C-alpha cells in the first residue's frame, strides 16, 4: 500500500507537470462559464437593444409598436417601401414593416429582414399587428373589442415542476434550456476528462513497457501496485481539476453572473456539481483501468489507438443520444443506459439532473458501477501482468482478453 501511494505520488507529479493538464484545467472553466451564461445570453439577445424597425404607412400602429419593442429600440416612419428595403440592406434598420392602406383586412403583410432569424423581433411585431388588426376587424364587424379579447384569450399554461421536495414555480422554456445546457456542459466535461485521462494512462503504461522501465519497477513493486498507482496518481490530479472548476462555476453563479445581470441556470447548483464529481470518480477509474489494460497490450501508440476504438464508441453513446436522455429520462432506453456500467456514470447523471429517479435506482446503478470498477481493475491487472512484458508482436483485442485468464 505504501508503495502504491509512492507510485501514485510520482504519477501525480508527472501528470500535473504536463502541459495538457494545465491547458484543460484552464479551458474547463470556460466551458462551465459558457454553460452558465449561454441560456441567459440566449434569452436576452432576442431583440438587441437599439434595433430600429422601419414602418411604412400604418400610423395607427406606431404607438403600440413602439411600446412593444421597449426601451432602446425605436420605430422609424418612412414614406416608401423602396427606402425601407434599402435601409434594411444597409443595416440601418433591423427590419421593415410595410402596411398598405386597408392592411387590417389583408391575409399577409410584407416584413423585411436581412437575417430572418430574429425570432424575438418577429414575434413582437407579429403580436402588435395581430392585436391591432383584430381590433380594427372587430370594429368593422360591429363587435366590441373587449368582447373579442375575452373570447380569444384562453388560459395560459403555468408550468410547475414537481420534484421530491415540493412544487415550485419555474420559468418554462428557460428552465428546459438551462437543464439542457447544464447537462451538455457536464457531459462534455465528463467525456473530455475521462477520455483524456484514459488515453494519458494508456500511453503511460505503454511507454513504461516500450522504455523497459517496467522491469526495474517490477523488481521493486507488484504489478497490481504499479497499475493502481498509475491510475490513482492522475486521478488525484483530475479531482483537483474538478475542484478548481467547481469553485469557478460557483464563483460565476454567485459573483460574476449577478454582477453582469445575467441569470445562471437554476440547475447549476452545488448539489448538481457534487453529483458530477460523484459520477466522475467511478467513470474515471473504470475507463482508466480499461485503458491501462489496452496500453499493456498495445505495441505502439497507433496500435493503442486501434484497440481503443470500441471504448470510445461506447463512451460516445451518451453524447450522441443526449437529447433522448434529456427529453425522456424515464424511457426504457434511458433506464437501460443508466444501469449499463460503461455509460451509467453519464446517463445516470443526466437523469439525476433532469428528473431525479428514485434513490434505489441511483444506488443500484452506482453499485453496479463500483463492482464493475473493481472487476475492470483486477482484469486490467492480469492483462497488465502478461501484456506489459511481452513485446514484438501486435495483438488482437481477443488475444488480450484471453490474457485475463492467464495466471
Amino acid at each position: 500500500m505504501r508503495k502504491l501511494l509512492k507510485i501514485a505520488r510520482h504519477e501525480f507529479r508527472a501528470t500535473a507537470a504536463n502541459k495538457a493538464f494545465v491547458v484543460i484545467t484552464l479551458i474547463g472553466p470556460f466551458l462551465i462559464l459558457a454553460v452558465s451564461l449561454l441560456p441567459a445570453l440566449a434569452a436576452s439577445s432576442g431583440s438587441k437593444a437599439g434595433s430600429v424597425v422601419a414602418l411604412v404607412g400604418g400610423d395607427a400602429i406606431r404607438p403600440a409598436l413602439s411600446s412593444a419593442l421597449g426601451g432602446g429600440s425605436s420605430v422609424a416612419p418612412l414614406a416608401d417601401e423602396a427606402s425601407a428595403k434599402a435601409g434594411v440592406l444597409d443595416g440601418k434598420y433591423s427590419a421593415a414593416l410595410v402596411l398598405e392602406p386597408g392592411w387590417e383586412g389583408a391575409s399577409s403583410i410584407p416584413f423585411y429582414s436581412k437575417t430572418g432569424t430574429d425570432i424575438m423581433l418577429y414575434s413582437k411585431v407579429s403580436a402588435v399587428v395581430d392585436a391591432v388588426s383584430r381590433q380594427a376587424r372587430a370594429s368593422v364587424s360591429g363587435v366590441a373589442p373587449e368582447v373579442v379579447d375575452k373570447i380569444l384569450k384562453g388560459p395560459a399554461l403555468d408550468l410547475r415542476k414537481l420534484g421530491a421536495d415540493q412544487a415550485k414555480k419555474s420559468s418554462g422554456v428557460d428552465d428546459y434550456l438551462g437543464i439542457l445546457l447544464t447537462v451538455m456542459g457536464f457531459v462534455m466535461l465528463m467525456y473530455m476528462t475521462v477520455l483524456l485521462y484514459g488515453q494519458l494512462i494508456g500511453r503511460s503504461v505503454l511507454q513504461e513497457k516500450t522504455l523497459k522501465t517496467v522491469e526495474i519497477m517490477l523488481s521493486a513493486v507488484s504489478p497490481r501496485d504499479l497499475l493502481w498507482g498509475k491510475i490513482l496518481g492522475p486521478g488525484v490530479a483530475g479531482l483537483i481539476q474538478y475542484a478548481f472548476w467547481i469553485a469557478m462555476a460557483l464563483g460565476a453563479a454567485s459573483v460574476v453572473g449577478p454582477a453582469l445581470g445575467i441569470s445562471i441556470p437554476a440547475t447549476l447548483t452545488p448539489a448538481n456539481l457534487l453529483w458530477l464529481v460523484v459520477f466522475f470518480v467511478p467513470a474515471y477509474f473504470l475507463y482508466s483501468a480499461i485503458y491501462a489494460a489496452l496500453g499493456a497490450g498495445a505495441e505502439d501508440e497507433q496500435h493503442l489507438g486501434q484497440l481503443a476504438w470500441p471504448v470510445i464508441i461506447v463512451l460516445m453513446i451518451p453524447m450522441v443520444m443526449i437529447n433522448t436522455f434529456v427529453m425522456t429520462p424515464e424511457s426504457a432506453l434511458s433506464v437501460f443506459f443508466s444501469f449499463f456500467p460503461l455509460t451509467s456514470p453519464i446517463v445516470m447523471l443526466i437523469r439525476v439532473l433532469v428528473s431525479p429517479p428514485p434513490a434505489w435506482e441511483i444506488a443500484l446503478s452506482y453499485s453496479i458501477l463500483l463492482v464493475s470498477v473493481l472487476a475492470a481493475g483486477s482484469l486490467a491487472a492480469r492483462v497488465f501482468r502478461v501484456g506489459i512484458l511481452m513485446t514484438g508482436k501486435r495483438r488482437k483485442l481477443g488475444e488480450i482478453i484471453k490474457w485475463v485468464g492467464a495466471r
Partner: protein
Amino acid sequence: MLEAREVRKSYGDVRAVDGLSFSARPGEIFGLIGPNGAGKSTTIRMAMNIIAPDSGEILIRGRRLAEEDKSIVGYLPEERGLYRKAKVEEMLLYVAALKGMPEADARKNMDAWLERFGILEWKSRKIDELSKGMAQKVQFICTVIHKPRLVLFDEPFSGLDPVSQDILLDAMLELKAEGVTVLFSTHIMDHAEKICERILLVDKGREIVSGPLAEVKAKYGRNAVQIEFDGDASFVAALPFVESVRRFPRWIEAQLRPDADADELFKALAGRVRVRRFEVVSPSLHKIFTSLVGDASPETGTDAESRPEETKGGRS
C-alpha cells in the same frame, strides 16, 4: 541466497532454458556465462519473477521472489530503461523510495555513487541528456542505491568503455567484500575471468560446465602453453602433440593433447625460434568454452582474433 533448481523455459519450439541448476552465495560473485541467446537473460528474469518458468524454480531466500524480498534485491535488466524525462536525481530517489529506503540515506548513497562514477554534476539533468555510457552508470546506481543483499546484473558491461568497465568491476568486487551476493551474466569471458568465484557456462539453455572458476580451470587446463618468441613458429600447429594454437599479436597459446608434456614442446621449439617467454598456463575461459561447445571459427586461425568472445555466434 539464490538457488535455481532444474529450471526450464521454452518459447514456442525454442528451449531457452533447459534444466539449469545453480546457486549463488553471499560474498561471492557468480558468473552466468554464455554466448548471446544462451538463456542468460531468461534465467535472470525468471529469478526476478518477471516471467514464470515452465518447470523448476528459482528461489531467493528459500522462496520465489516475494514482494517483501524485493527491497533486498537489485536488478539491472539487459534492456536498459529509465524514465527519459526524469532527472537523474528523481529517478534514483524514486527507485530507492520504492525499495523502501529512507530518503536521507538514499541521497547519501546516490551522491557517493555519482561521485565515484564522476557524474555528480549531472545529478539534476534529465536522463534524456545523458550519453549512453552515463545512462548505464545511472542504471547501475539504480540497482545498488538501496544497498541490496543480492544483485543481479544482466550484461552490465555492454556499451561501456574499458575504463568504465573497470570502475564497474571494482564496484562489483566491493559489493562482494560487503557480503553481497552478486550474480551477473556476460558473454565476455574476460570479465568473468577477472572477478568470478564461481561460474556457470551455458549454451542453448544448457549447462556446459559449472563450479568454482579455479576448479573449472584446473579440470580443463594445465596443458596449454603461452609462448612469446622471435621468428616463425607456424610449425607448432603441425606438431603431433599439439591440439590447437591460438595466435595473439605478440604471442601464441598452444593447447597440448591431454597426454602430452610441455617439455616436448620446449624441445621442439629449441633452436628454431628465439623464445622470450615460455609459460604453462590454464587455458582461458573462452578456450574452455569453445573446446566444450565447439566453435565455428578455426582455433588455429589468424592473429586478427583478439576478441575471442566474438567468435561464437549465438541464437538471438
